[in-house]
């Protein structure tokens, strides 16, 4: 009789997801299923509404990355009106978005990733949080994190008027420009953010790279996946978070395809499994081949590491130095080491800060020509950007009166759905073997796999509880023999 282990995060808040781990008779992992209910009806909700309202509506899908949806939606709506956008508006949108990236990546690194490395994977769960990190590294660093996050958010607010529930982007541009006095206010903050990215990289070197056990954990063991990589790049194959073409590169570094936003449906399709509401995107021209690794797989990651894997270099000099250091340390480019996503976020933040500095030095950035008012409706638009958690696609159509007739979204986390399933199975298989009794350690080891992806189920599905309540139940011959719980 097979055994079943359930990792159930729903004990306090009903209706979310769980992980089912099925064991063979001899106690090896046979299969795992990660199940999340999906939000329903967004496409129906927006059909019939004026298309220019969508950039404001989509920010309500998710409180975690509203700016990402706002930007992707704005670009899709631009397309519905012919695609002409004031050049300065593109710069300002990009500038705004770099700041959003910084505060999101900072929060993830210090609140979620750092506890694993600063405190260790085996740390007491009650201390494995940002408070534990601050206790270990000092109040001064904690204060610096809070300050840097706050400054990045304030930069967003100054540029775009708000830092959540954005209403700034309009068809053909943005609602306000950046005043010279506003630029002077944010300049020193941006320099400070750049310095903080350098500090964070040094912290990573000192705490993570100096410990051979951590390096071994990153490079070996279950936290590696032989799947391909997706990310948006510029013409020089450097990452671009706001605009560019999608590039897909296999795990040996060879380009599989490269496409513009309007071609996305030729390259990405979504597979459906009966046991989950979430879809599984795959490379359409390869066809669905199942949850398999290997050079012929049609699966890919769309993560910070994947973005760097598809890039030849970064778009800015100091970020390129950090990029080269990272890949030299983790065994070459591209990398299959899922946990290197945490380092990749730090590298991306360097590019974010340097890009902001570049815009501060741009004499045109305080101009006033921030919008080209659309003159006609063309009826279809595509918006692809890099959300913090992966490539984000919005595709809309509208009628001649600019009323929405259809909407399709492929969000960052959804791209990674299959890899998350697969790494969950790998980690479970590494911990649960015949003759080995599963213990509490399985909780954090599986959480570490999740955290590397920074999955966002607010829009892929719905928000999970903040500290991911987990319950592991081990079933043998129809009886529960072990129960492990956290945050529940």
């Amino acid at each position, binding site marked *: 009789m097979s055994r079943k282990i359930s990792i159930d995060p729903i004990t306090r808040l009903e209706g979310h997801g769980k992980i089912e781990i099925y064991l063979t008779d001899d106690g090896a992992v046979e299969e795992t299923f990660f199940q999340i209910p999906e939000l329903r009806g967004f496409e129906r909700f927006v059909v019939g509404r004026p298309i220019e309202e969508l950039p404001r509506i989509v920010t309500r899908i998710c409180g975690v990355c509203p700016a990402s949806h706002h930007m992707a939606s704005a670009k899709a709506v631009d397309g519905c009106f012919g695609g002409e956008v004031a050049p300065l508006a593109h710069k300002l949108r990009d500038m705004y978005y770099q700041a959003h990236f910084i505060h999101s990546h900072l929060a993830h690194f210090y609140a979620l990733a750092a506890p694993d490395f600063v405190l260790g994977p085996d740390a007491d769960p009650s201390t494995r949080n940002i408070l534990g990190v601050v206790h270990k590294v000092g109040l001064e660093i904690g204060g610096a994190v809070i300050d840097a996050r*706050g400054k990045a958010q304030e930069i967003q607010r100054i540029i775009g008027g708000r830092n959540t529930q954005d209403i700034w982007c309009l068809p053909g541009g943005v609602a306000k420009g950046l005043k010279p006095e506003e630029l002077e206010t944010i300049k020193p903050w941006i320099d400070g953010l750049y310095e903080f990215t350098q500090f964070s990289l040094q912290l990573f070197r000192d705490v993570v790279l100096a410990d051979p056990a951590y390096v071994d954990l990153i490079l070996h063991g279950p936290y590696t996946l032989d799947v391909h990589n997706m990310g948006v790049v510029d013409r020089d194959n450097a990452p671009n978070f706001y605009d560019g073409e999608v590039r897909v590169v296999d795990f040996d570094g060879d380009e599989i395809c490269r496409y513009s936003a309007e071609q996305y449906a030729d390259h990405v399709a979504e597979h459906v499994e009966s046991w989950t509401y979430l879809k599984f995107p795959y490379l359409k021209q390869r066809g669905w081949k199942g949850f398999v690794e290997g050079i012929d797989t049609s699966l890919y990651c769309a993560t910070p590491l994947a973005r760097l894997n598809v890039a030849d270099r970064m778009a800015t000099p100091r970020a390129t130095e950090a990029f080269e250091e990272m890949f030299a340390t983790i065994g070459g480019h591209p990398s299959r080491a899922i946990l290197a996503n945490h380092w990749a976020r730090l590298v991306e933040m360097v590019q974010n800060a340097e890009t902001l500095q570049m815009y501060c030095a741009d004499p045109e950035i305080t101009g006033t020509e921030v919008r080209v008012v659309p003159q006609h409706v063309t009826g279809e638009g595509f918006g692809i950007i890099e959300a913090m958690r992966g490539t984000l696609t919005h595709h809309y159509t509208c009628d001649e009166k600019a009323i929405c007739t259809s909407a399709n979204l492929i969000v960052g986390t959804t791209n990674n759905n299959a890899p998350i399933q697969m790494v969950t199975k790998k980690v479970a298989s590494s911990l649960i073997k015949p003759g080995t009794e599963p213990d509490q350690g399985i909780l954090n080891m599986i959480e570490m796999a999740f955290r590397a992806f920074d999955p966002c189920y607010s829009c892929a599905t719905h928000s999970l509880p903040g500290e991911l309540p987990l319950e592991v139940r081990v079933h043998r011959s129809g009886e529960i023999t072990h129960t492990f719980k956290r945050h529940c």
Partner: protein
Amino acid sequence: MTAQDGRRTLVVGMGNPILSDDAVGIRLARDIAARLGARDGVDVIEECCVGGLNLLDLVAGYDRLVVLDSIKTRDGRPGTWYRFDGRSLRETMNLANVHDTNLATALELGRQMGHHVPDDDENHIFAVEIADNMNFSEELSPQLREAYPGLAEEILAEVEDLLSGRGEGAGG
């Protein structure tokens, strides 16, 4: 104690306005704002969708926090509501943020960093059991729509008592 003592209160309606019952906290905050009118020392954020460290940014500087949010508990009956404080805090639907930290941790971090944030017994969370937060809609579910007038009146009365110093935890 009232606002005349100089204490500052922040009332926050948490949720998503286009996700069916998830909007119940927002509706409550709007109703409270309408009932209170302009009141010294009381600020109302009618619509807030951020949790974790983002919420710390909003709360810093206030002496008291009142959160209105939704919750789903095992076998919960839609329309039932619960009240928690900082010492008996349970994570409601929108107070948590899977991408950084929960409210209690964020506030403790703020304290350690020297920010002025409400003490545990000055955090008042009102959470309404909901039926549907999975379907996009600007309408409440039928169950909650029916229950809303009654629960809103009860919660509004408690918040008014709290702000006037009569309610539990008003302290002083």
